[in-house]
């Protein structure tokens, strides 16, 4: 058995100083993610999902605890360019066209010119933005901007994909199509995905594991294996097991939140 891709041991993250301002965003997070896992994080707003992603991606340091990524420190993994990150906000560069935004990581990673063009082309096709290659970000809708960000993260086939509500701003049809595309890429490249979402259905449909978190302090309250057959497709959604798992995740969320925010989360 190969060693896990992500290992978090007793990770705590406290923001702010002084008893008044302190926020315990993460508490005693213990988590192991295996190669080619597709893990969804679900939980109420402010429970620390983005923070957890940022700790894994070495964009912030945990207050205590250890992170090991691909058998090395998170910092080394970042320096080795193991991560492809889709942030909660699209975070495109205003001065770059859509195509140039997608190319940014390829430029930084010294891809050859022809390879850069080929991948940019393929990624824009994937997110159906070929016609907008020469547009600037402000000329796109929020959902289109988010698709550019997804194309940018996928373009260099990172070994770990960290996606923070990547499909939040998309319409249902695009969302379902990109769900399938994402699964395709995930299967083909053998990448490991950590995926934040507010949609129970999406979490169950995509994942091999759903991790439920609770707020203040942010903790893991449930870890549900999704044993639906692969590959997932439109039939998956009509599988009886699909509904059982959805209910299981919903109940776990309800317990973690005392039933308060469940309706909001599942909406």
């Amino acid at each position: 058995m190969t060693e896990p891709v992500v290992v978090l041991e007793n990770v705590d993250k406290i923001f702010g100083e002084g008893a008044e301002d302190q926020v315990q965003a993460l508490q005693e997070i213990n988590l192991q993610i295996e190669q080619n896992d597709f893990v969804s994080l679900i939980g109420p707003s402010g429970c620390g999902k983005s923070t957890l992603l940022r700790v894994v991606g070495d964009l912030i340091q945990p207050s205590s605890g250890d992170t090991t990524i691909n058998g090395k420190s998170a910092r080394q993994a970042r320096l080795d360019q193991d991560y492809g990150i889709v942030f909660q906000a699209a975070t495109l560069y205003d001065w770059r066209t859509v195509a140039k935004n997608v190319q940014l990581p390829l430029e930084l990673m010294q891809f050859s010119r022809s390879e850069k063009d080929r991948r940019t082309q393929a990624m824009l096709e994937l997110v159906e933005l070929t016609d907008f290659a020469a547009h600037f970000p402000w000329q796109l809708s929020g959902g289109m901007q988010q698709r550019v960000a997804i194309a940018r993260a996928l373009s260099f086939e990172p070994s770990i994909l960290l996606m923070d509500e990547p499909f939040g701003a998309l319409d249902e049809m695009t969302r379902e199509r990109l769900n399938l595309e994402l699964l395709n890429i995930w299967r083909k490249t053998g990448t490991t995905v950590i995926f934040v979402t507010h949609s129970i259905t999406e979490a169950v449909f995509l994942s091999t594991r759903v991790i439920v978190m609770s707020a203040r302090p942010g903790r893991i309250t449930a870890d549900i294996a999704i044993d639906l057959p692969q590959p997932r497709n439109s039939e998956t959604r009509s599988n009886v097991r699909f509904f059982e798992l959805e209910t299981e995740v919903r109940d776990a969320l309800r317990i973690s939140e005392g039933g308060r925010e469940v309706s909001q989360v599942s909406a």
Partner: protein
Amino acid sequence: MSESRQRIWAPLLILVALVILWETLVTAFNIQQFLLPKPSAILGNLAQVVVTGGTASADESGAERSLNNRFFVVLPGRLTPEVEEHLQSARWLEFPIGGRSVHVVRGSNLTPILAASWFTLKEALGGMAMGTLAGVAVALATTRWTASREALLPFAIAANSMPIIAFAPIMNNWFGIDNPFSKMAIVTVMIFFPIMINTLRGLISVDSRSLELMHSYAAGDSEILFKLRIPNALPSLFSGLKVAGALAMIGAIVGEYFGGPRIALGVFITQEAALFRFASAWAAIIVACLIGITIYLVILLAERLALPWHPTFRK
């Protein structure tokens, strides 16, 4: 009417209205011309025939060259009928005064004003180039070496609070009154701060998510500088340049008030005013304004070309 047309016509209409109002008020209240000449007098001054003279020179081209190099107006425009008549046919005339030979050249006051403006414009542009280079360089250095920010900023602020009136004569002493470099130095010091502070703001006020994106790709400092900080700073650099463009002409002209070659615009204006040729002084002031506006428009155009993505140009 399209919006862009309206943007041109509205100010033009206001300008014409103001000029007409100015003309009527000066006429109606019989205001002395040394207080405020009529617009028609100022425009007339730019068109009228005046007499200018140079030092002794044998041929016509030499006379014109001396005109351009070190012209001075010898008479306020009143000529003897003979000279007047001669100038109807010839472009220039030479006659002796007190043992020296003086050239009388047919031309308008526009010629000397333009020559003076060109001289001063070169000072302004030279100072702008140096001030911009220095401002951008210091901004880049303070971004790269954060520690240098605390060390350099007090000096930048000191340079900014230096009274230009006190500074100008010193520069004239340092570099020589007739040396254009003395005025360039004044302009450099004047525009250094707006350029530096605007560029610095653009370089360091980078969106934290954009920075995280770079970090997630393990981008190095220089990649972050070239692919994120500098593009992010260009819009504020241009705001700095617009301020600097307005200051540059002012700086050069103020510097010339404290002395400079006769060809300089500031010297021209002071001399004309001292000789009670107010229409001529005003004409020079208006040309200086037009040059200031032109510099601004050129910067605006450059901005439009350099930043096609910028929000200001979103339609």
